[in-house]
């Protein structure tokens, strides 16, 4: 980290700050939101931003800031949840493939290749039909789309690490296979996994908000957990000509969040010196 140029460090710190702010705001939404999530004022429809409603109100007279804050909770749940599910499935899968080698490896990675070649969104839409269009089903569907990235990285890293002298010497000293895997190989592959993790969060957020925008995402308009930014943007899109503020704020939230995560991923990749293959 110390070798980083000051500019690169600034990117790392600032993007990490924005990411943390969005996460904190999202999960603290019930405590910091100025209005209650279901509350609507029938006389204040589509009002532009004011001191009472910082982001204005939507077509049903709901406070947009409140909705955007709760939307952050949805996006963060989707992003972090997906990344965690994919991390667990993919890393274990990749470790097994890389460590077993031979025919096992060949077969396991063929499966990954087929998944990898198909468009994420397509599999995601098909899986969400199966798991249902609620936040849990979507998390599962997204996790099942994203895990292949981790499987590829983990397997590649294991194959590399297996050749390293210290792993060979551990084997020569009589360490068991599971000990080598857990104590010597796993710590060595953490850096690229962290980078993949960081990049998989924004793509999950993007996928979920896109599907919600086109109307086939989370189908739960009165969820207490919050409404997706994609759905908010869709609501605003229909009123865009006369009331651009209704789409502007959710759209900006999506963009800033994805940009911050992507920048953080790039900065981490440089800081941890992970080579892309």
């Amino acid at each position, binding site marked *: 980290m110390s070798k980083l140029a000051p500019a690169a460090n600034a990117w790392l710190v600032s993007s990490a700050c924005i990411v943390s702010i969005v996460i904190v705001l999202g999960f603290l939404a019930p405590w910091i939101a100025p209005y209650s999530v279901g509350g609507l004022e029938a006389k204040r429809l589509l009002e532009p931003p004011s001191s009472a409603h910082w982001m204005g109100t939507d077509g049903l007279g709901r406070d947009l800031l409140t909705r955007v804050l709760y939307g952050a909770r949805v996006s963060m749940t989707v992003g972090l949840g997906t990344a965690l599910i994919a991390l667990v499935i993919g890393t274990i899968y990749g470790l097994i493939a890389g460590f077993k080698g031979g025919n096992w490896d060949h077969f396991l990675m063929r499966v990954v290749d087929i998944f990898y070649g198909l468009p994420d*969104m*397509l599999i995601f839409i098909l899986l969400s039909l199966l798991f249902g269009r609620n936040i849990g089903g979507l998390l599962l569907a997204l996790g099942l789309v994203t895990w292949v990235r981790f499987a590829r990285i983990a397997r590649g890293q294991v194959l590399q690490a297996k050749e390293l002298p210290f792993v060979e010497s551990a084997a020569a000293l009589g360490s068991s296979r599971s000990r080598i895997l857990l104590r010597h190989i796993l710590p060595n592959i953490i850096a690229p996994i962290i980078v993949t993790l960081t990049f998989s969060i924004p793509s999950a957020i993007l996928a979920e908000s896109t599907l919600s925008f086109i*109307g*086939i995402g989370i189908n739960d308009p009165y969820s207490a957990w919050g409404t997706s930014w994609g759905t908010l943007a869709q609501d605003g899109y229909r009123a*865009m000509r006369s009331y651009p503020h209704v789409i502007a704020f959710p759209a900006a939230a*999506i963009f800033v969040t994805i940009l911050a995560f992507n*920048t953080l991923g790039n900065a981490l990749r440089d800081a941890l010196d992970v080579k892309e293959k």
Partner: protein
Amino acid sequence: MWPCAFEGDIPSENDNALIKRYIYASPMIPILLKRTVHGVIVLWIVATFTFLLLRLAPGGPFDSERKLPPEVLANLEAKYHLDEPVLQQYARYLGGLARGDFGPSYKYLDRNVAEIISETLPTSALLGGLALMFTILTAFPIGLLAAYYRGSLIDRWCLFVATLGISLPNFILGALLIWLVALELGWLQAGRWDDWRSVILPTVTLGAAPAAYLSALVRSTLIETLGEDFVRTARAKGLRESVVVVKHALAHSLIPTLTVMGPLAAALLTGSFVVEYVFAIPGMGRFFITAVTDRDYPLIMGVTLVYTAILVGANFIVDVLYGYVDPRIRAH
């Protein structure tokens, strides 16, 4: 475009003979045959996977707000062979596919799935083709400029714009362009698909993120190539700078760029149904989305298979192009 492994020299007679031996000794045909078989297997796996998935999915195509009388439901199921055992349905579906029959649509009673696809695919293909052209025509000049003036203000601006482009979801970009260019400024049209004025905004929306990604890739591979010995040699020989950059460096950087063409095609495909939705373009993607909301299973499967076939085809073309860009690959 000869490989630049000859230290930047123009290939001599001897080298040409060597390359020809490479090419003719191991023709491409077996490789292409293998790729075709591979593609058919992928299509079969996707067909099976989708078939199973949609059979397992909760809720049927005829679940509507108003419950249908059981006799009507039974008649509908008999009409669409949904009362047969699953294996028999599967065999029927695959048999139909082999004859180019994608089955009936549950939603559109006057047209079957194959007809819907053949009506809407040309629109989507035009949009995708235009977006691909836009991607290539913007990414290469920008990437080249940024790499050549590495570290300069131009480079930093290009990188900045590329980062923004990668992070901007296409539905937001689309909405922004419609609002700014079509509604506020009134320069172009949105929500139609008939003349050049209505085509530009969707093309830019669909092509922007791939262009941003590709230009960053062109930049980084070119920077690497420009530092190679053979580029120095080419310069030392006194070749014109444009020849050095385009003929020697750029040609050498084409392989890494080609490798992402497959994923790029995938991005354009999935991007297309968002863009078609935002701009109300009557393409295949929009029908796919309505099919998902309607649970029109045969239409979902048909479009999924066409998407897969397009991807398999795109990867096939990329494989052939590899051989042209780098004849050494044909030898393996």
